């Protein structure tokens, strides 16, 4: 466990050298990485989304490719295609998806057809071209970014696509001190660079270690009840959920909760998952999996508020232990 904590803290430190602030975001990015999930980063332009992904790629000794999503981007531009070689036979030319860390920049600018080209890759870690299955090299980690305010000429990600992302992280505007730090770090002659400290094998080993973390039945039950509470027709749903939610989180949501909580437990120096770990990962794991209804959209309801409400309403233990 100490190795894990050390590796984690080192990676975090390296990224923090370049990225100012966003400590929690960096931690959550690494949690997703060690859980084997993908990240959707949402934030205004210029907040360092792309830089963060690039820095992470620099920290990890993994192959990196960046795909700039545009409306005219075709699926074959991502996956790859068969091209005729000099020997007059078709050879598969792998696309940029054949890397270990993918930066899908401004993913919502591409058409749904192109967006869906990522579906198989993200879920199965493989792509199929002309009937041939091509495995992607592990660890495979997609980090997509999207701009929440520019809606013109964008194609919001469909629910199925959104559900593939382990966490959705929101980058808020940096504070006063953080802005000062950004100036200092980026306008000086020496620009800090992250060093490579983790390789693919280490990450894969740590991913297996994470899965061994035991989770007690009451904790599992709590995670399940949180997921059920996001469904408006569930017996656990709160009045807020009943009013504003169309669809709740999928089973992938509870997987994300438990896996994320396991990583959180390890980085906290614990060998087991606690209720607090579940709560910590609840927002990034569930915020993109809850689909608001018309009323929720109209009233500008934020899914984070709903999750807060659910956490507040759902008790840790359904049946309290014996009372003396």
């Amino acid at each position: 466990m100490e190795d894990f904590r050390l590796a984690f803290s080192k990676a975090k430190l390296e990224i923090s050298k370049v990225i100012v602030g966003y400590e929690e975001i960096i931690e959550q990015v690494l949690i997703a990485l060690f859980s084997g999930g993908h990240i959707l980063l949402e934030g205004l332009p210029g907040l360092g989304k792309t830089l963060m992904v690039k820095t992470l790629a620099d920290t990890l000794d993994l192959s990196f490719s960046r795909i700039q999503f545009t409306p005219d981007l075709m699926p074959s531009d991502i996956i790859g295609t068969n091209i005729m070689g000099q020997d007059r036979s078709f050879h598969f030319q792998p696309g940029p998806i054949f890397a270990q860390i993918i930066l899908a920049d401004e993913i919502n600018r591409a058409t749904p057809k192109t967006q869906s080209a990522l579906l198989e890759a993200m879920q199965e870690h493989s792509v199929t071209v002309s009937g041939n299955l091509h495995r992607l090299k592990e660890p495979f980690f997609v980090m997509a970014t999207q701009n929440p305010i520019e809606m013109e000429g964008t194609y919001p990600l469909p629910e199925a696509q959104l559900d593939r992302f382990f966490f959705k992280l929101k980058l808020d505007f940096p504070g006063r001190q953080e802005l000062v730090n950004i100036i200092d770090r980026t306008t000086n002659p020496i620009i800090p660079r992250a060093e490579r400290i983790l390789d693919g094998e280490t990450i894969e080993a740590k991913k297996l270690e994470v899965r061994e973390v035991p989770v007690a039945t009451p904790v599992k039950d709590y995670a399940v009840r949180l997921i059920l509470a996001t469904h408006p027709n569930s017996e656990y749903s709160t009045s807020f959920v009943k009013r504003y939610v169309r669809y709740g989180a999928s089973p992938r949501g509870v997987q994300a909760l438990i896996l994320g909580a396991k990583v959180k437990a390890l980085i906290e120096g614990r060998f087991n998952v606690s209720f607090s770990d579940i709560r910590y990962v609840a927002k990034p794991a569930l915020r993109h999996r809850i689909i608001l209804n018309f009323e929720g959209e109209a009233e500008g309801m934020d899914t984070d508020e709903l999750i807060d409400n659910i956490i507040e309403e759902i008790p840790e233990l359904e049946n309290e232990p014996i009372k003396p």
Partner: protein
Amino acid sequence: MKPEMVKTFIKIRWKIRIISFINWLIELYLYLSSIYIVSYFFRLDIRLDYLGIPIVLAAIFSVVKPIRDRDIAIILDKDLALEERVITTLEFDHQESPLVSNLIIDTVERLKNSNLKLVCRFRLRKRLLYAMGIPILIFFSLFIYNSIQFSRNLSLSEGVVASEKGKEIISLAQQLRSEKPEIAKRLEALGKGIEEKKVLQKENIATLDKITKEIDKETDSSGNTKNINVELKKILELTASKLDMENNPSKNNQEISPQRKESNQTAEDSNRGNEKGSSPKEPNTGQDNSSGILDKNNMPGIGKNGNTGSSEDKTTNPPSQAGSREDNGGIKDLGEASSKENNTIQEGGTLPGKGERENKLGEETPRKTEEGAPQFVPGIPKGEGEIKIEIKGFGKATSSNIPEAGGDVKKSAEDPLAKEPIPPEYREAIRLYFERLKGER
């Protein structure tokens, strides 16, 4: 499970049982106190031995109730802020994994270093609040009930004693029945009143006790009473009269109220008047009114103020009479009135009495009508026929002073329009418009 953990679990289990025992004990004593409160009010004898029952029951409840390891683990995690380490250790105890082994070591170490006094601290159950409310509620309910039921001047115990004293007075009266039937009768009535109404004052209790003692003195071993001396008789009469006054405050009020007094007086006068003209066998029928004319003021049971069927009247007249008088209070029999034109029968003499009307004025007359039909004594309805009844109110006919709102509204609505000057440039056009309308008609 590690021996250290087992030891901790045993400690916590016993602690839970002790706290549970104390809580149960308090709760059961609260329930028992409710029973004792009820027994106090109803003067039931409940032995104090029963106080031991809660101890036995609390011991049984606290020991019999199963306390699972899971519950203890959750309590430990919660109270020692161990972040679900204990419950996870408990569940994954048999699993062989480096992480689980580390978890067990970590948990045991933390439990060793923890202060177990913080676990499962003594606190009263929330349920005890409700349990506490039960005896309080019962006490105040019975207190209020007794306050309403018994005299306000009495303490609770005295109030309870009242009914017993009533019984004593009745038994005393029964003893005196042969020798002093008059006093016995009054005492019996008094005793019944006290027993039923549960009203008794301190001084009356004392007086009655005195009487009881004196009668007891004069009672020989065979149970026969000796002659009661004059002094004792006086005391009895005085006590009885006092109690009678206290037990029937309504009677006192009747005597005090001048209006009622007047009304009663009138009623009595009218009764007296009726009695003069009526035969002793037919009391208060009203048919033999000396004047023979319906006179409300002279009607039996109807006072000058038009009071009918009051409780006082009922004491002097049979209830059926009182009821029938009320029925006729505002009704005039027009059957009789119409016959007055042909026959000289007066109103009155037909007031409803007790039972069926009697034909006092005779049967069929020998006289015949022009058609040859038999004639009867006028004013006495017999056989089939039409009876007209007119109900007259006491007040005058109402009249409405509401102005004709419709007219006023129309006028007030049209006036401003009529007064509105027509702009000069439109006058000609308007005139032509109306002339055209006239032409079209």
